[in-house]
């Protein structure tokens, strides 16, 4: 799957995008987030305040209970501030 990070989240992860194989036991966004947190302190910092993170799967907003598959693009970002 493709993972993408925007705005201040990207500054914490240190990367804008990465390709990862769907990890064993990961079936939804919540499980993916737990797997990311275990990868390193930058990721743990991103998800420290879960309410400050928005999630999109394949360009649509989703909740943390949304399923994820290996072919998905999953993006994490802060509340939007355009306009």
């Amino acid at each position, binding site marked *: 799957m493709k993972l993408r990070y925007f705005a201040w989240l990207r500054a914490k992860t240190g990367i804008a995008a990465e390709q990862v194989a769907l990890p064993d036991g990961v079936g939804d966004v919540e499980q993916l987030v737990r797997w990311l947190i275990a990868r390193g302190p930058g990721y743990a910092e991103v998800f420290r305040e879960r309410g400050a993170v928005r999630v999109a799967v394949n360009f649509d907003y989703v909740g943390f209970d949304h399923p994820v598959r290996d072919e998905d693009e999953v*993006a994490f970002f802060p509340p939007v501030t355009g306009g």
Partner: protein
Amino acid sequence: MAVRVQTEDFDVGAAIDAMTRGATGIGSLASFVGLMRDHAGGAAVSAMTLEHYPGMTEKMLGDIEAEARRRWPLIDCLIVHRYGRLAPGDRIVLVLTAAAHREPALAACQFLIDWLKTKAPFWKQEETAAGARWVEARAEDDAAADRWRRD
């Protein structure tokens, strides 16, 4: 239906001319232009960089425009949003809505900018004397978008 996401500036008059030329069923056209302010939270802002999520931005703007067209009898509609580095006074966003009468044009224009601000994946980073800072989402913007919610 038109949505444009671009770094370059836009010409408001030219956009209005293009929308209305030959479209003589249009009796009302409403416009909104968002500009970069030179201050925020009591601090001077010297520049701003807008980041967006290519792909999702276009999809969200298209979804928002489709929703406006479901709600109001619009003859035409345009959303132009810039990204990249901007200076105070620069135009950021343009919303045009055209209809036979003013009520749907005005309401749809306000709806589009209210929903765009809370749904389109753009993020602003401001440059101030104290350094660069990410702009935080405002509760007022959520409240403005919520006015249009239909449960």
